[in-house]
């Protein structure tokens, strides 16, 4: 039955554009069709606009221009309520559930049903839905007692209860174990069999090939194309996703006299839910080179940098050893940023979250220059004079546009915020400079200014770590590139000889010996032995 339906258009997105502020265009003139009864994968790199596009179907955002048709009729989806009325349900990456409510209470929350409020009847209907699709949740169960996988299931039930015919799942497997993911896929197949349309947002190629009928690819906010999964391979999808190699005119001086600066051994850590985010990561960083780190968001690059900076608790047996230029060796494990600084380790860190971690949004440039040096001087008073001078210097050298040195940096544009942060971190004359997404959201000129600054540091013998999402830039700027996939190292490549496809492939695939697919086989073997 589903086969017959595949060519009926359920949703048509026509020339939809959505931008945030004046600079960030999340979706540009996207036109695509979603067919009834299919499982469609929406594939793209970080920041390619997948979630934004789907949020417009779910009523979270409203398009700047363009039209959306549902079942052939033009619609205006102004709120999630409108989306429900059109039979569109979205399961967000971050669940929107009330912890202290039961499953049934969460499902009926916000519904304006006629007649008396009847939780028992709702529970009965929920039970029916669960039985029909094989969900294992009970209407009476409290959300705080649920596993992550059950919470996700509940979100799906919530959408189905509201009569969703089209389900959108935003990176549904990101929070699931491989076994739970398999279970989810069989649920999705059941739903397809029942005639529902399913869209999953993902950047995992194997999943795309495993579950979907068709793949639609977005790149930098634009629709690249859609192909039937049967005709796609991992390589062809990677190419569509990352695009042709773009020649960037970024200079890359050869490393002069690289010296070992940082040794990372067996680095492992867990997140708040106790899931592993980094597993046995090993690498060396040398002064005088730019060490690139590539990976899909959530692959552990954030935790990796924070572990080095003393902001992330790591597992036992992890080792991070700093080789000072004067020959001393110091372990950085278990040391706070203050301690690391007091040890004489000059480490600078440009975190991903600029205003939430690197800067104080409500303070001006002067206040922010003070952030790492506010302890300067022996009086209880802060010494603002050197910070004022530094702020003046950064403003001039990096051409920061700000009404005054005391204008809260929150009010500056993204590029200027980043310049303030990078300027401060470089001014500290570091031996190791960690940067996470240093050019995210910046225009071309500012980006080149930042690349130039990083190269300047490299020439001075600083060990520069560059975590980036634009593969073209990573390839053009770095000397070596470490590729992470799901918290594990999937490769360490020479940036001068590698290709974009190779990195794109490594980002989504682990080398065979540590491949997750190997696990069930091993388990099977062990079973056999018993």
């Amino acid at each position, binding site marked *: 039955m589903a086969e017959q339906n595949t060519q009926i258009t359920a949703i048509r997105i026509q020339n939809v554009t959505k931008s945030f502020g004046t600079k960030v265009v999340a979706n540009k003139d996207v036109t695509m069709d979603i067919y009834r009864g299919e499982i469609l994968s929406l594939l793209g790199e970080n920041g390619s606009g997948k979630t934004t596009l789907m949020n417009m179907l779910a009523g979270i955002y*409203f398009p*700047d221009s363009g039209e959306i048709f*549902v*079942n052939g009729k*033009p*619609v*205006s*989806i*102004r709120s999630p309520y*409108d989306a429900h*009325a*059109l*039979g569109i349900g979205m399961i967000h990456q971050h669940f929107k559930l009330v912890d202290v409510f039961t499953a049934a209470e969460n499902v009926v929350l916000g519904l304006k049903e006629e007649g008396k409020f009847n939780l028992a009847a709702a529970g009965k209907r929920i039970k029916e839905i669960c039985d029909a699709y094989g969900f294992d949740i009970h209407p009476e169960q409290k959300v705080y007692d649920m596993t992550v996988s059950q919470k996700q299931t509940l979100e799906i039930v919530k959408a189905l209860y509201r*009569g969703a*015919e089209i389900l959108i799942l935003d990176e549904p497997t990101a929070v699931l174990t491989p076994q739970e993911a398999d279970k989810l896929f069989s649920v999705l197949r059941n739903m397809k069999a029942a005639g529902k349309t399913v869209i999953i947002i993902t950047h995992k190629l194997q999943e795309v090939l495993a579950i979907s009928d068709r793949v639609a690819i977005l790149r930098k906010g634009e629709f690249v194309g859609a192909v039937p999964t049967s005709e796609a391979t991992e390589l062809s999808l990677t190419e569509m996703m990352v695009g042709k190699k773009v020649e960037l005119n970024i200079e890359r001086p050869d490393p002069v006299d690289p010296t070992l600066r940082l040794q990372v051994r067996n680095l492992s850590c867990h997140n708040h839910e106790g899931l592993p985010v980094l597993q046995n990561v090993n690498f060396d960083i040398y002064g005088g080179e730019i060490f690139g780190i590539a990976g899909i968001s959530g692959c552990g690059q954030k935790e990796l940098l924070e572990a080095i*900076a003393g*902001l992330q608790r790591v597992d036992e047996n992890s080792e991070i050893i700093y080789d000072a230029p004067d020959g001393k060796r110091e372990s950085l494990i278990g040391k*706070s*940023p*203050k*301690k690391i*600084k007091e040890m004489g380790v000059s480490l600078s*860190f440009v*975190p991903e*979250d600029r*205003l*939430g*971690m*690197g*800067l*104080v*949004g*409500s*303070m001006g440039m002067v*206040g922010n220059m*003070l*952030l*790492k040096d*506010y*302890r300067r001087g022996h009086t*209880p*008073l*802060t010494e603002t004079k050197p910070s004022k001078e530094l702020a003046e210097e950064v403003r001039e050298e990096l051409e920061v546009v700000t009404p005054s040195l005391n204008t809260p940096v929150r*009010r500056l544009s993204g590029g200027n915020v980043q310049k303030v942060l990078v300027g401060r971190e470089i001014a500290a004359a570091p031996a190791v400079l960690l940067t996470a997404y240093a050019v995210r959201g910046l225009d071309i000129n500012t980006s080149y200014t930042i690349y130039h600054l990083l190269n300047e540091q490299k020439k001075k013998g600083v060990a520069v770590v560059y975590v980036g999402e634009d593969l073209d830039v990573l390839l053009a700027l770095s000397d070596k590139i470490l590729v992470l996939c799901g918290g594990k190292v999937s490769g360490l490549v020479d940036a001068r000889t590698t290709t974009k496809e190779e990195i794109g492939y490594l980002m989504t695939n682990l080398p065979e010996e540590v491949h997750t697919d190997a696990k069930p086989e091993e388990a099977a073997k062990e079973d056999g032995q018993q």
Partner: protein
Amino acid sequence: MSKTKEVKAKEPLFHIVARDVMHPGASFGIRVAAFVVALLLSALFVWVTVKVDLITFLKTMFRGAFGMDKVFEAEGFENAWTALLSSYMWATLKAAAKLLIIAVALGPAFKMRFWNVGAEGQVIIGAMAAAFVMYHYSTMPGPLLLLVMLVVSILAGGIWGLIPAFFKTKLNTNETLFTLMMNYIAMKIADYFYNLWRGAKSALGMINQTSRAGWLRSLWSGKDAAWFRNEDLWFMIIVLVFTVLMFFYLKSTKQGYEIAVVGESHNTARYAGISVTKVMLRTMAISGAICGICGFLLVSSQSHTINSAMAGGFGFTAIIVAWLSKFNSFTMIGTSVLIVALQNGSMLMANTYSDRGFSPSAADVIVAIMLLMVIGCEFFIKYRVMFKHSAKEAKA
């Protein structure tokens, strides 16, 4: 199951958009406008209920707040001073000083985004501690007794503030609920000692009424000038000193800087190597300690006794003062005077027109209208409402 409703292809009528930044003059204008609107609304309310016209209303309000009857007519400084002490103006300043010091104490906690709503209890417990020393060690030499009272008040208030901070840092308890509940514990402790000390008497009365041990005025001798011996005046001076100190503490010290960073983002604090736990404990100890000092001042200079209502709800009103002043100590001076002026002004309205049925509760309505307007206008300073029409223009 599908119930596809017709969804009209129409844009929403208006958007609410966060403002980037508003010109200081414009935001001041909005606030003044809100104040005027509030006055007019109150006048309308008064006209409808008790038929008092706008001019009389404003005159009565002003007199109740800042009236200085007989002060300027008095001959000689001594007489003018005596007249001032019994004027409405003096009552307003006296109450404003009390409100101000509590708001100043809340400043650092609020700047740290630690919602300390326990000032009422911290003041009471500070007052309790001072009264305890005063009651049991009245034979100590005067200045020493006052010093011990001060130290004990600081400790009591500080510890009272430290407790919720401790649990917040250890167990991540909600500080708003915690500090709120601590108020009632403090009140009950005050009730207990009040009844204990009262014994068979109908009321406790002033402690050390005859010896005046532990009274601030026991420090001066009879030779000092009358104005110099005025305890209220010293209360105000001490409060102003704290206001100035707090302003510079928050603005220019390393600890003040740490408070600002922790208030902005715990992650940024960690990134800068600031211990959030340490800053939180220290700041709440300071916040509580200043409330404790307020308690000491109330006992030693204003009431000379204790009861559970001695903070008079000012611990709660001070929250509004601190917020309206954006946690700026100097702004708090004006704000606390304004709030007390409103309360006292509308109280005179109630007293004057009680025969027409204008009760103290009706007076509260005037204060409420004012606060609603002043707080409500912040919305228009932070956001602007864009209608369909203007939304398109803004995009272009």
